[in-house]
């Protein structure tokens, strides 16, 4: 791999006699979303504050592009810090300034841009974060979710190359949490900054993170992809991941990936050899178009409603489901062969076309700007598997056989 953008070597930090970080070693790579997970009070925010220079380590070295911070000139450090933005856990918005002024503040104070150019940039960010109606309000007049969006807009106004997010979803409802994470992922792709995030939101952060860093017992015990974390054999997995990851996902009400796997394993172990089961894979197309046209909240509402609808239908007949990717759901029908599964699916499709898709759309519209509409389709495929074999090839097979089961088409002029 390339030289890390940021590297911690044996970082130790104490507050008085209390050791918070001990011999922390980590690497953060350019252009990725890296999420630091750990229990509350484990020192995640302290770690983040070292990156932006709000805290200095007692021992150890922080390197940027392989160069120690301590060997850099003042001007080099200033130039480096000018590329970093920080979104605070409590937002840290200026309560005596309006939303517009909060977002414009870094440009007004640190650049020589003309008033018109500042206005253009601020309004662009305000539009992107869906804050137009709130632009002249004060932070105390906004909901928690809107305040987060203001903080995000302010963090992104200077087009930073590195953005640090300190628990960006704290205190939000499940739809809003996922909307914020989705927004971070979208902006990261759009502006190609390096995102470093502190979060508790397991497994939701897995959908948007390239790398996960696990902070446990004052040090980093794991660095790797979300998939690799699943195979990580360490007390961290039992004590932290299990406690943070509920039995079911908050957003969709479906099983978490881990519990889905456990359930699948238990169910299939009971089956005798020769018996079969079926897997159905559902994919929502055009999620990005829904986000850009109707906003993150509406997109998350579509995912939420779809998860609830799938669970309601298949759960009633012994099936269990999980959300596999941002826009993909997997359902296992443990007691059905392909013939039965096709019948069940046909019933589902019939219900879905008659009622389901309109229900999903109605929920999404509650969160969307008036009159906005976007076409989207839902595809589904089924495949049969044997209990003795792994489930992943069966899922891939079901995916390859997907066909359209529902379509929402906007009326002309909408």
């Amino acid at each position: 791999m390339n030289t890390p953008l940021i590297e911690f070597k044996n970082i130790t930090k104490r507050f008085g006699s209390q050791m918070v970080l001990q011999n922390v070693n980590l690497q953060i790579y350019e252009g990725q979303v890296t999420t630091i997970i750990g229990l509350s009070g484990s020192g995640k925010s302290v770690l983040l504050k070292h990156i932006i220079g709000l805290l200095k380590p007692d021992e150890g070295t922080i390197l940027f592009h392989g160069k120690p911070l301590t060997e850099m000139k003042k001007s080099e450090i200033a130039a480096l810090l000018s590329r970093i933005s920080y979104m605070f856990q409590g937002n840290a918005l200026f309560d005596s300034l309006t939303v517009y002024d909060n977002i414009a503040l870094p440009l007004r104070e640190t650049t020589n841009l003309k008033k018109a150019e500042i206005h253009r940039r601020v309004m662009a960010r305000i539009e992107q974060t869906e804050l137009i109606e709130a632009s002249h309000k004060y932070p105390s007049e906004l909901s928690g979710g809107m305040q987060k969006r203001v903080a995000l807009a302010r963090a992104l106004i200077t087009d930073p190359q590195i953005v640090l997010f300190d628990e960006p979803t704290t205190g939000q409802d499940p739809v809003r949490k996922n909307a914020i994470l989705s927004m971070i992922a979208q902006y990261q792709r759009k502006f190609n900054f390096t995102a470093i995030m502190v979060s508790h939101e397991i497994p939701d952060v897995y959908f948007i993170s390239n790398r996960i860093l696990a902070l446990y017992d004052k040090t980093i015990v794991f660095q790797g992809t979300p998939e690799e974390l699943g195979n990580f054999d360490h007390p961290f997995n039992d004590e932290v991941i299990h406690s943070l990851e509920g039995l079911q996902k908050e957003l969709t009400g479906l099983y978490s990936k881990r519990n889905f796997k456990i359930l699948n394993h238990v169910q299939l172990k009971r089956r005798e050899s020769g018996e079969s089961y079926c897997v159905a894979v559902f994919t929502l197309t055009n999620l990005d178009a829904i986000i850009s046209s109707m906003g993150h909240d509406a997109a998350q509402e579509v995912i939420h409603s779809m998860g609830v609808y799938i669970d309601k239908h298949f759960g009633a007949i012994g099936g269990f489901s999980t959300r596999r990717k941002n826009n993909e759901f997997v359902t296992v029908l443990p007691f059905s062969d392909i013939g039965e599964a096709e019948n069940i699916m046909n019933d589902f499709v019939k219900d879905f076309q008659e009622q389901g898709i309109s229900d999903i759309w109605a929920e999404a519209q509650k969160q969307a700007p008036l009159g906005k509409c976007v076409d989207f389709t839902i595809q589904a495929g089924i495949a049969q598997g044997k209990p003795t074999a792994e489930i992943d090839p069966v899922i891939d097979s079901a995916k390859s056989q997907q066909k359209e089961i529902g379509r929402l088409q906007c009326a002309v002029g909408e």
Partner: protein
Amino acid sequence: MALTENNQKSSACEEKRRPGIFPAEPFTFIGEVVIGWIDGLGTATVFLFMALLKTFRPKQLSKIIQQIYYIGARSTTIIMLVSLFTGMVLGLQSYHALIKFGAVGGLGALVSLSLIRELGPVLTAIMITARAGSAITAEIGIQRISEQVDALHTMRIDPFRYLISPRITAAIISFPLLTAVFDFIGIIGGYVSGVALLGLNAGVYSHSIQSNVDMKDLTDGFIKATVFAVIVATVCCYQGYYVHTRKDSHGAKAVGLATTSAVVTSCVLILVSDYVVTSLLLI
């Protein structure tokens, strides 16, 4: 490193505190308090100089004007009200005292010199401390505990330039101006009680002022006002800015205590420095 030093210090203290021939505790306590004071004074002086240095940076003028409006213009009404009644009471008391000696003709001089030399700068400073100083401490303190000051750091906006410097500069400009307002309205107050209510001749009152008040009285008053401005603004900004380092409390309570502490310290320092400056000006 810091921890080791602390351990060493505490073991050294333990050694000193061993029961012996001479009870050292009271002296240790006094020493700690004095060192704390000197340390605080040093930090506040550096704080003041840092803030003054940032005054001449670009983009400061609009912030200074905004603070002059907040500290100065919005204090005008209360200053006028207080000065009017101060002048009236001064006129009333002085009239009855002077009449016993047949020196009532000196009422104008007595009222105006008392106001210009002493009461104007001191009462103006105390009134602004109560109205704007406490608000400055609370505002900066809340910004500190809600991470707004840290947010400025992360946005590469110098908090000294953005928060502290405009307030101290605005105070230095506002205090002498408000003192002038206080002096003027106070003299009118003396006129109201002495001339309009008690019947002293208006010409005698104004002639007494004209012949006894000279330029040095005015400049001395303004020098005092400027000194008080520096003291009040520095103390109030300092208490708010370092509210998170208080050892006696945290959060909202710390902001409350810092505000009280800022007002009390400012008022005490106004009176102490008044004596010192007066002594120096009389040399």
